[in-house]
């Protein structure tokens, strides 16, 4: 898929979302555009709708109204969202959400399996990513044997496995201490440049939001540019 560099990599138009059969409105008419290579913060308090908007933008959930396009393609169909998750996006959660019984390497293989990558491609990518985040010596360790910071770095590697265009990160530093959280954020910034990916980071921490290229402030389901 090719696109003009000035064209937004991610665009939302009039996106609405509510729960409980419309009784709980969460996202109220969000419009936004994000360009390639940007590190954008979705900043707001708990309950402001950051996670829900992130789910809608990443194709994990479907808006009640409005449209989301990624790389110029609408993701309104299930097929388009699946393809998006496989090849164009990666997701990092507040809790790492890795499979604890598997090793670091086996966790990184999951996106590659989903996208039917070859063994050679998979191995090379695992080596490249674990080396970049300083976890090459831990590839055969089980997740339960890793520290919180190592787990989150592994989750970032997993999100990057299929060379996505966009990474969505939902409070990735929220469960970490200040120092480790800072290191993870720096890792994100570095990877944005190194991997040339767009990062949409949901955070309630002002210091991280201010360190991003742009802040989208979430308030009560609306987004202020």
């Amino acid at each position, binding site marked *: 898929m090719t696109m003009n560099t000035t064209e937004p990599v991610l665009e939302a138009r009039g996106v609405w979302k509510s729960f409980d059969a419309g009784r709980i409105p969460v996202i109220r008419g969000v419009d936004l555009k994000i360009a390639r290579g940007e590190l954008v913060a979705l900043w707001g308090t708990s309950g402001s709708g950051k996670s829900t908007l992130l789910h809608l933008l990443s194709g994990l959930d479907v808006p009640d109204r409005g449209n989301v396009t990624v790389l110029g393609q609408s993701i309104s169909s299930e097929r388009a969202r699946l393809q998006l*998750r496989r090849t164009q996006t990666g997701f990092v959660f507040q809790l790492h959400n890795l499979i604890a019984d598997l090793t670091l390497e086996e966790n990184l293989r999951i996106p590659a*399996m*989903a996208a039917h990558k070859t063994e050679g491609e998979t191995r090379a990518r695992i080596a490249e990513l674990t080396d970049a985040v300083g976890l090459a010596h831990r590839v055969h360790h089980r997740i339960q044997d890793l520290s919180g910071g190592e787990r989150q770095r592994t989750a970032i590697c997993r999100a990057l496995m299929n060379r996505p265009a966009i990474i969505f990160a939902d409070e990735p530093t929220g469960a970490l201490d200040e120092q480790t959280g800072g290191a993870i954020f720096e890792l994100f910034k570095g990877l944005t440049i190194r991997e040339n990916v767009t990062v949409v980071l949901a955070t309630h921490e002002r210091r991280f939001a201010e360190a991003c290229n742009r802040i989208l402030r979430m308030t009560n389901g609306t987004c202020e540019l």
Partner: protein
Amino acid sequence: MKGHLRLILTNLRRHKMRAAFSVAGIGFGVAAMLTIVSIVLGAIGMFQSILAKESHYVVFEKNVSDLFFSSVKMEQVAALRLLPGVERVDAMLVGIVSSPNHPIITCFGVEASDPLIRKAHWLSGTPSRFGMEPGTVYVGQRAAQFLKAEEGRSIRIGKGEFRVGGVLRTDNGFEDGGVFMPLPLAQEYFHREGLVSVGTVKLKDPSKGGIFQRDVEHQFEDLVALENKEFNQSYSQFRILSFTSWAVGICSFLLGGMGVANTMLMSVFTRIREIAILRVCGFSKTQVAGLVMGEAAVVAGVGVASGFAVGLLVLKTMNTAPQFQGYVQAVVRPDILAAIVVIAFATALGGALYPAWYASKIQPADALRFE
């Protein structure tokens, strides 16, 4: 593929006991079906081989449910022997007798010329004396063991006391565990004078069986002649036995299938978040369902292997255990093994269908919202 298998095995390893119970459920079904079906097929095969020793056709009374109730007159046997194309007819009266501690002993009333007598390996006594001595019976090797019978001694069978004229060995469990009586003695003992249960017919030219069947139909209103193969397929007792054994086996499989369904459902319920993460990472609904079905297939595979091991061990034990009087000569056929494998996998995969469907329907955002 390797990665998928790793995910499947990892999940099964997480809940070893639960997986073990599922494997045991399928294994039990496999062992039960293998044991029951093989024993029944063995029994049917033994009975068939008694009738088909040296014959092409079986002639018996029309519309009887069991050969034990069939009555063919000796005059009819004689007339059968005179039909064109008939080489020989062997008459046999089959009955069940009992002795102290042994409630069931098959008794074969036969003539001295019967292949059962001629072809047996005589351990004591001689076939030439068969039917020559009054009140004398001949016992199979296994029957001799449990009746503690030997040539020249007397044994009690039912209400009668008989002298043992010899001990003979055959390859057939029913025969080896049975008692052979000269036909007149058997007719007297079972109060069926002038009657036999069945006539087995050998033709000079087996290709002219159709003519023989028509002759029998035309000449004997109350008799029917069936080719051995036809008899095996249509004899109601064989069909009932065979159907029952498969039905019992399938019932035990259904229990195993329910075990698999329960295990898989619990497996899905306890890792909804993990499945959601797989979906986030790009797994399709089909891939997620495939993982659950793969777990069921692994359970079925291990269950089949363990079930075969247990079933074959049970059959081996039963084949040699003296308590079974040699009546168990299990027949383990490749097509039966294949059928059991197919049923085991179908049951396990059938049990995993709903869990797999449920897993494939998990929406990542819904599952993750409660983080």
